């Protein structure tokens, strides 16, 4: 019996559904998976280009798909995240702060992309509309960057 896999976007829906302090958005980006993930999955070069609150990301340690990364913000303190990163999947936590991204190819050659931001706790429930608008702007930027960056 072969394994039955759920694609990364379905998995991110499950985690987002279990974490009431997180906002969640997903939509189809008009670019192929490789180009989209070359942006979204590149924490060092990609994230500072679409995440407006982050100016620089450094990978402190990497062991297979497990990373420790430090983000430097335009304002506020630097943050150390533990992360799981592999093609189509990124999940990061730093204290109460959570960030997730997932992507899967669509049959027509585009990419279904999902994004989560929030906290482990329910306190940011009131901020969800703000988070969703912020994340949609980030998806806009990822789509634009994917259109001009070479795919891997």
């Amino acid at each position, binding site marked *: *019996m*072969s*394994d*039955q*896999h*759920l*694609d990364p976007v*379905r*998995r991110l*829906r*499950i*985690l987002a*559904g*279990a*974490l009431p302090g997180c906002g969640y958005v997903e939509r189809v980006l008009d670019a192929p998976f490789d180009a989209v993930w070359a942006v979204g999955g590149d924490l060092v070069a990609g994230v500072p280009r679409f995440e407006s609150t982050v100016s620089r990301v450094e990978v402190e340690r990497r062991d297979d798909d497990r990373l420790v990364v430090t983000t430097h913000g335009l304002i506020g303190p630097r943050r150390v995240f*533990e992360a*799981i990163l592999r093609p189509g999947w990124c*999940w990061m*936590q730093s204290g109460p702060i*959570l960030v997730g991204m997932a992507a899967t190819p669509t049959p027509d050659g585009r990419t279904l992309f999902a994004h989560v931001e929030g906290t*482990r706790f329910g306190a940011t429930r009131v901020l969800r509309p703000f988070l969703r608008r912020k994340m949609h702007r980030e998806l806009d930027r990822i789509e634009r960057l994917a259109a001009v960056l070479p795919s891997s």
Partner: protein
Amino acid sequence: MTVDWDRAATLVVRAQRGDTLAMSDLLDITAPWVTGICMRITPAHGEDAAQNALTVVFRRLGTLTEPAALRGWLRTVATREAIRLGSEPRHEPLDEATTPGDAGQEPELKAFLGAELARLPATQRAVFVLREIEGLSEREIAEVLRIAPGTVKSRLARAKGRLRKAWTS
């Protein structure tokens, strides 16, 4: 699909303490197993059923007092959700990956089982899958599906009778 349930129980405890990386790992090791159960019962809606079942369980993970009970809980929720989504009468094609039997099974028998299982009502298919693939007892199946043991017996008999009749015809 073999799941390391001892590791899963450890991840449940970490997840209950707020470690979302453990939640991600727990999803990695349980999702294929849950999806397998759902796909065998309702190939057309198996991924939706698995997603719904896992969402319910992960949302309520904090209420699980005995981490070792995760396996039974997941199986129960997944089976019920797969039956719910697959309850409309339809002829669902089962591909090779959703066909019961081990890798060494005769291809002809495998294809036959796949085609004939797809013709069973979801309720009969669920009982057959839980008994013949998951290896549950009739009493355990009754508990999972919240039906009388006699109903399990009769659904299983009808499913097997139908398969036998199709095989010999």
